[in-house]
């Protein structure tokens, strides 16, 4: 009998009154301004209702009043932790509609910045997950390392967080002379810190006790809720758009899709979801290494595109593998320079919807960890 069931039975024998607690929007560990209305029976969570919208900026409506290039900065502000990855599917959609061929160098550059940003995102995810479990030190180790990644991206794009780097048909900044060495440096640093955090946090017995077997998301439930990204892969489903539907030049690289194997605990629990992110960082390092090797250093970083971007009439859905899951943009064009309708399919929003399903019956402290293991960004959930 699992520990959870035992607790269930123990507590079902007691009569007690239930208490409703508001977790958020001002709470240290809701990762933003999420509000969870939690019903607890003592310490056991009996019901969770997430309330969204505290960061709603009406992104989709706003886009209808803006030209296509103007939308990119707004997309940065959706999932501000992995802005590079966010811009990609949108830019791909425009390029497909305009039928623009992107230069080879740009493709490699895009892969490198996107994977670097994926590492940065996973570093924050793992770090804040550790923070939710009460371990503060790995949090700052990861933030220290993330800074090196940000420096590279800043030198390329000029901004630290909201890059606005991807442009239709190219990117905004060319590589600089020390780019390759710096990338290799960062990879070495990421690997070193990961090895350290593995011992310090991930394989720490307390951490394993806290996270293994908690918040089990079975593959069926994950698919039914439309989960994607590390949340889905943590449940043992090897689904990754970079491999299953290779966009850009991902078919040229050799990398694995890490899935939750249940080394500790059960497949689909918080520990495995977190572990998938640890492994994905390593895979991103591998992709970056291969891309750096194959990338041509000379050449232009922009394709010839009209100054005023007008999409032909029609519609397109473009998706890419974001660090948090599958990010898609559905654009309906009416032939002008502004979209008729733009719909974003955000991975955080979809993944968040699974919380009430998987957090019932666990303890209140576990709920925080489950939320942390889903890795949401409220900028994208609320849009």
């Amino acid at each position: 009998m699992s520990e959870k069931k035992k607790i269930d039975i123990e507590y079902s024998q007691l009569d007690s009154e239930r208490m409703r607690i508001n977790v958020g929007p001002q709470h240290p560990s809701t990762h933003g301004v999420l509000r969870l209305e939690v019903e607890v029976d003592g310490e056991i969570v009996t019901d969770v209702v997430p309330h969204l919208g505290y960061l709603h900026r009406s992104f989709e409506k706003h886009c209808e009043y803006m030209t296509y290039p103007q939308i990119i900065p707004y997309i940065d502000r959706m999932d501000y932790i992995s802005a590079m990855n966010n811009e990609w599917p949108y830019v791909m959609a425009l390029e497909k509609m305009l039928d623009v061929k992107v230069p080879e160098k740009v493709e490699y550059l895009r892969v490198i910045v996107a994977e670097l940003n994926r590492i940065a995102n996973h570093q924050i995810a793992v770090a804040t997950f550790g923070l939710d479990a009460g371990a503060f030190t790995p949090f700052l180790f990861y933030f220290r390392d993330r800074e090196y990644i940000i420096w590279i991206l800043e030198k390329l794009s000029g901004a630290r967080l909201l890059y606005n780097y991807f442009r239709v048909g190219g990117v905004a900044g060319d590589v600089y002379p020390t780019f390759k060495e710096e990338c290799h440096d960062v990879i070495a640093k990421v690997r070193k810190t990961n090895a350290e955090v593995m011992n310090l946090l991930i394989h720490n017995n307390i951490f394993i006790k806290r996270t293994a077997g908690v918040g089990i998301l079975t593959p069926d439930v994950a698919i039914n809720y439309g989960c994607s990204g590390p949340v889905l892969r943590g449940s043992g489903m090897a689904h990754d758009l970079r491999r299953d539907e290779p966009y850009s030049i991902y078919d040229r690289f050799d990398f694995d899709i890490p899935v939750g194997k249940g080394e500790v605990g059960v497949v689909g629990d918080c520990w495995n979801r977190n572990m998938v992110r640890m492994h994905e960082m390593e895979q991103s390092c591998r992709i970056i290494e291969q891309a750096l090797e194959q990338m041509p250093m000379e050449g232009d970083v922009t394709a010839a595109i009209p100054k005023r971007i007008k999409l032909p009439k029609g519609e397109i859905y473009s998706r890419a593998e974001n660090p948090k899951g599958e990010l898609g943009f559905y654009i309906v064009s009416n032939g002008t320079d502004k979209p008729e309708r733009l719909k974003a399919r955000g991975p955080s929003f979809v993944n968040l919807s699974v919380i009430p399903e998987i957090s019932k019956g666990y303890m209140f402290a576990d709920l925080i960890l489950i939320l942390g293991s889903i890795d949401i960004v409220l900028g994208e959930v609320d849009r």
Partner: protein
Amino acid sequence: MLTYFKNIWIGFYSALVGMKITWKHIFAKKVTIQYPDERFPLPSNARNRLQLMPARCTGCTLCVAACPVNCITLETVRVVPDDPHQELYENGTPRKMWVTRYEMDFAKCCFCGLCVAACPSDAIHHTTDFEYSSLDRSHLYYKFQTLTPEQAEEKKRLFAEFKAREAREKEAKAQAAKPDAPRPEAEV
């Protein structure tokens, strides 16, 4: 019973492993810098506060169109041929437009860099200055026009006079060419 003691040992041991790592870090080199005294060099393309070079700005309003948050206010007046105050652009060509008003609200600016990309004459660029916070929002409203308000008024007046003169000349010319044409007053 054996697993019980094994679990205790694993728990204890993994804590010791973690403590060994943190112990090593106590003596590691520190990475933080003392910010106002030491500074991290920003890359030259860092996107911070915008700067306009009025000597280059042609007042083409492309930056206004490119801005996603409408933080730029731009007003221009055409340079009249008989203006005593003529000016050259930085590249030597004579100025065609007076920029009477070029204002940026950095409280709104999202530092996306689209205006820089849009500018055909490279008049607008990002600086590496990020320390311009202020207690008053109005201090974030930057004015880049070189003309004083009086000068701007003067230019507007000159332009209006020029326009009126032009219209008069046009009218006179039109009347000279086509005497039968109806008078403009009648049209209104």
